[in-house]
């Protein structure tokens, strides 16, 4: 079901957390609300499910205005960060609870529980208590409980935050598989850009209660609208070079080194401050546009190696290279930037 949030404002006491936000989420789409802590992403999620009242604005599910509808009647399934399973009930009773509340017949409840348990692969755990389950299993139970009454919308609040690294990888694809299998509209709240990029159709990147950019993961990675977005996405993160415009070129701060500006952008006036963003994969020994520097940090990541290169003015560029490149700490190198993949940002941080 399509969700549209129009001019949503939310404040707690005197603090306005979200001001005048609008967002459209398409039918069957999985959207990530991504952002640093305190950016208002969870608040938005809780407004969609009805736990928080909106101070102003309108919330539509499909063609129905649900702004004033209570949580119970919105037909939204939620998976909470700590899963919020009912500790005194076993897995079967947990999953069946939403149906029991609606007083469905025993046979019907049983059939649906078995069906959903099969979908999330917990068929053999139904008699266990939540305490006896691992984190990943609890997560699956929480998903099953959220999905059992066929909600119009599935909301996931940091669903992977409490899992260890290996399980996180597994549940990432599991959640996506279940979302695609059910075709449900889903909203995922996360502060982890990898989760957002790997699981979702689109990402809404939020900062200070505003949506900074709304785009597909690939587009957001390649065409960030500001240096904040560019810095948030990508692991290892993008490196920034500060400098000014000089003779139509980019001159590094405190240095005589100049770099040509990527083609097709509007160069601000002479002397204006400017920022270059270079992703680690576009700073490689083979590229033509050389920048000299010294290897200041080496991190072995197994398949790849990550290098920090300190330029002569103190700025740091990052490079990620396949293993056995064999550079050592302190070594003088002169690697090149791929000119057309450089992201240029103006003084206000916005992309040029």
């Amino acid at each position: 079901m399509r969700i549209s949030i129009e001019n949503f404002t939310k404040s707690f006491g005197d603090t306005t957390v979200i001001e005048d936000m609008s967002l459209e989420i398409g039918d069957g789409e999985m959207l990530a609300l991504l952002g640093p802590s305190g950016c208002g992403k969870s608040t938005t999620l809780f407004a969609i499910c009805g736990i928080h009242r909106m101070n102003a604005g309108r919330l539509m599910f499909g063609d129905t205005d649900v702004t004033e509808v209570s949580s119970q009647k919105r037909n939204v399934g939620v998976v909470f960060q700590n899963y919020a399973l009912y500790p005194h009930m076993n897995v079967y009773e947990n999953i069946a609870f939403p149906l029991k509340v609606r007083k469905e017949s025993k046979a019907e409840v049983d059939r649906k529980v078995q069906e959903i348990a099969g979908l999330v692969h917990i068929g053999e755990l139904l008699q266990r208590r939540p305490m006896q389950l691992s984190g990943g299993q609890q997560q699956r139970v929480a998903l099953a409980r959220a999905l059992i009454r066929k909600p119009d919308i599935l909301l996931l609040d940091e669903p992977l935050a409490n899992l260890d690294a290996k399980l996180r990888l597994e549940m990432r694809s599991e959640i996506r598989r279940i979302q695609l299998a059910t075709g449900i509209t889903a909203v995922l709240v996360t502060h982890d850009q990898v989760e957002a990029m790997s699981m979702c159709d689109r990402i809404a990147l939020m900062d200070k209660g505003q949506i900074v950019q709304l785009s597909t993961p690939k587009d957001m990675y390649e065409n960030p609208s500001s240096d904040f977005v560019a810095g948030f996405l990508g692991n290892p993160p993008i490196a920034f070079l500060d400098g000014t415009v000089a003779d139509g070129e980019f001159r590094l701060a405190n240095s005589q080194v100049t770099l040509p500006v990527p083609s097709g952008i509007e160069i601000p006036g002479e002397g204006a401050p400017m920022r270059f963003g270079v992703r680690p994969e576009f700073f490689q020994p083979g590229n033509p546009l050389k920048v000299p520097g010294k290897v200041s940090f080496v991190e072995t990541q197994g398949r790849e190696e990550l290098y920090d290169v300190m330029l002569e003015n103190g700025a740091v560029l990052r490079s990620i290279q396949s293993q056995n490149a064999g550079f050592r700490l302190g070594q003088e190198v002169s690697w090149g930037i791929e000119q057309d993949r450089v992201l240029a940002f103006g003084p206000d941080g916005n992309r040029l």
Partner: protein
Amino acid sequence: MTSSNFRSWPLYLILTVISMPLVIMYVYLFVDTVTDTTAGSLIPDRFTLHHWRFLWEEPETGRVSIWTVTLNTFIFATCTTLINVSASVTAGYALSRLNLPFKRFFLGGILTLHAFPTITLIISIFLILQMIGLYNTLIGVILVKAALELPLGIWIMKGFFDNVPWEIEMAGLQDGASRFTVWWKLVLPQVQPGVAALSVFVFLSAWSEFILPQVLAPSGSAQVLSTYLSNLIFDDMKPDFNMFKSVGVFYALPVIIIYLIFNKQLMNIYGGGTKG
């Protein structure tokens, strides 16, 4: 205690010597109820069930049967517990979770009331009960006792509710349950150890209550065991101390049994009620 560098028998010896007087008293309490002792002797020499005759003999005129009094005590303790616990779980939940006006004021008030000595209220309570016609009735004492135990009950239950995660309630609402269903089916089971502990605590407190029944329902059909026991020595021209002890043992038995069964739950309360 099997640690090699610590010998435990001296400690046990000291403890045994110190607790001896207490143990001797208890033993004599039990022994005296089923024996007779020749005057001037310390050692009992005859077995008898004569002192327990109050259990099966018809009461003397003007006296109430022990069974009526026991039933009264049970009704008194049970009703007090029911009223107190049902009020505590609702009030405790409200103070813990609902957005009440004057919440801090209520919380402060409860603490103050809890610290307030009951005995200073007794005259006004007496007057009020007499005015509304509940003096010398069981209902009157039940209401007063339940009310006086409330601050502690509410405070303890609030502590237990505070430890129930918010998300459980949110999840319940999201699953389509009403606020009441959420409270009844999801939240109450989480604080069940608290409810059990509070129930036992209030029951025992009511069972052993003496001042309130003595002042507010001193005679006749509303008597409870504690007042019966005191009447036994006050009224009688020819005191029978062994029978007094028998009634005492009879009175204490349920308390001992309840303590033995529920001592784990009671630890919950004395531990501060902080673990859910």
